[in-house]
């Protein structure tokens, strides 16, 4: 393994371990998503959802849970002095970006593993659309993780970071949401899943991931020098 890849694996393992240690965050976020779904049930006064409404409820819930949870990863790091240790290590700082993104993707995937089936149980009539939904979820997670890591690593050193991350992150993920809901809506249609423009939306998601992955990779160095 090249030193970079070894460093990547080490940081990733450390992040996951620290996340498993601070177990509070993930179950809390999962619980938050389920409660949000209940609020949607009563807010919309619907017991069954399909098409664009289903896609909207699902993605709004996932998005808000993600935005709330994103701060947690960096807060823990900073409080444990993890940043200083990383800065002293003789590795390319952008590797840290990759590791953080990977950790955040795994975190989001774990969240969805709980939230999506419960969503299906609460609101969907059939589980046909859920298989291809996995592809949408994964690509969206990547994009969310890239921008989330970028923004929260800037906000971690600021005051009012709990407000700052959602404030800046939400407009940034609008194109992501457009593509994700665009792909999800036909999957959850009333008559059964359809794949209208599915490939196109997946490509848009991929493009988003690529652009913000590259931007994050390029600028992350500047965020850690002090």
């Amino acid at each position, binding site marked *: 393994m090249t030193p970079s890849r070894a460093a990547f694996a080490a940081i990733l393992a450390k992040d996951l371990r620290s996340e498993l240690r601070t177990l509070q965050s993930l179950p809390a976020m999962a619980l938050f998503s389920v409660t949000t779904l209940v609020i949607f049930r009563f807010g919309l006064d619907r017991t069954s959802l399909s098409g664009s409404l289903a896609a909207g409820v699902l993605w709004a819930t996932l998005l808000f849970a993600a935005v709330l949870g994103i701060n947690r990863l960096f807060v823990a790091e900073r409080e444990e002095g993890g940043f200083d240790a990383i800065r002293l290590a003789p590795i390319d700082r952008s590797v840290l970006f990759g590791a953080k993104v990977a950790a955040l993707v795994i975190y989001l995937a774990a969240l969805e593993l709980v939230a999506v089936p419960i969503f299906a149980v609460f609101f969907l009539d059939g589980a046909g659309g859920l298989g291809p939904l996995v592809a949408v979820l994964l690509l969206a997670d990547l994009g969310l993780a890239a921008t989330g890591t970028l923004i929260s690593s800037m906000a971690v050193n600021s005051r009012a*970071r709990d407000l700052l991350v959602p*404030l800046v992150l939400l*407009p940034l993920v609008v194109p992501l949401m*457009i593509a994700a809901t665009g792909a999800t809506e036909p999957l959850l249609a009333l008559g059964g899943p359809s794949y209208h423009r599915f490939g196109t939306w997946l490509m848009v998601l991929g493009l*988003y991931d690529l652009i913000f992955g590259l931007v994050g990779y390029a*600028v992350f160095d500047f965020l850690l020098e002090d």
Partner: protein
Amino acid sequence: MYGKGLKPLSIATVAMLAVALSLVFFYAPLDGDQGFIQKIFYVHVPLAIVALIGFILGGVFAIAHLRTNNRKWDAYSYVSIHISVIFGVAVLITGAIWAKASWGHWWVWDEPTLVSFLIVFLLYATYYPFRYAIEDRDRQARYASVFAVTAGAFVPLNFMAVRMAQSLVHPRTFATAEGGMPGEMMLAFLCMLVAIGLLWTTLVKFELTAKSASGQVKRLRRALDAPVGGGSSRIAPEVS
């Protein structure tokens, strides 16, 4: 020396605006569909185009700042974004007036360009609270540049995504600069575009000059060991 060239620039701006506005109201023919209301476009669209270019320039200056660590690029980036946000307010209000005149509603989701612009505006509006939240000035400048670069990359992606989200059922109900425009309209439009571009440049230079003057006063105070006044802004970058 930021003030140098400001006078000829402002003169050129005023002249160009006068020429362009005359063309808009006395030379360009009336639109067949929209009638007199179409005249709003001559101010709305150039403002939008110039604002978007301004945002991207803010990102370019930010890249220069990150690479050279010269604070003046941070000032350029900040002011570019500042003026573009103000132009953005004008874009959204004139867009709403056009929507009300055309469709009777102050806002329509059918117009992908306007919706995209709203999202871009919302993002850049967070630039100020973002800067304000970071206390250390060095870090503030650096992070603001990262923000500007990220936001600059966001702009084209956002326009593409919103456009794709538009249902194909609602066709665009007007023709902007994209073809279908008679020559006289195009001329008036291009002149307005140049005029608004000059206006943007003049205002940016104007604000940079003001900042520079403030910076010189501070420098003078420090040289005289005089107490520094309490008027320094927390978020605006200092120029010296």
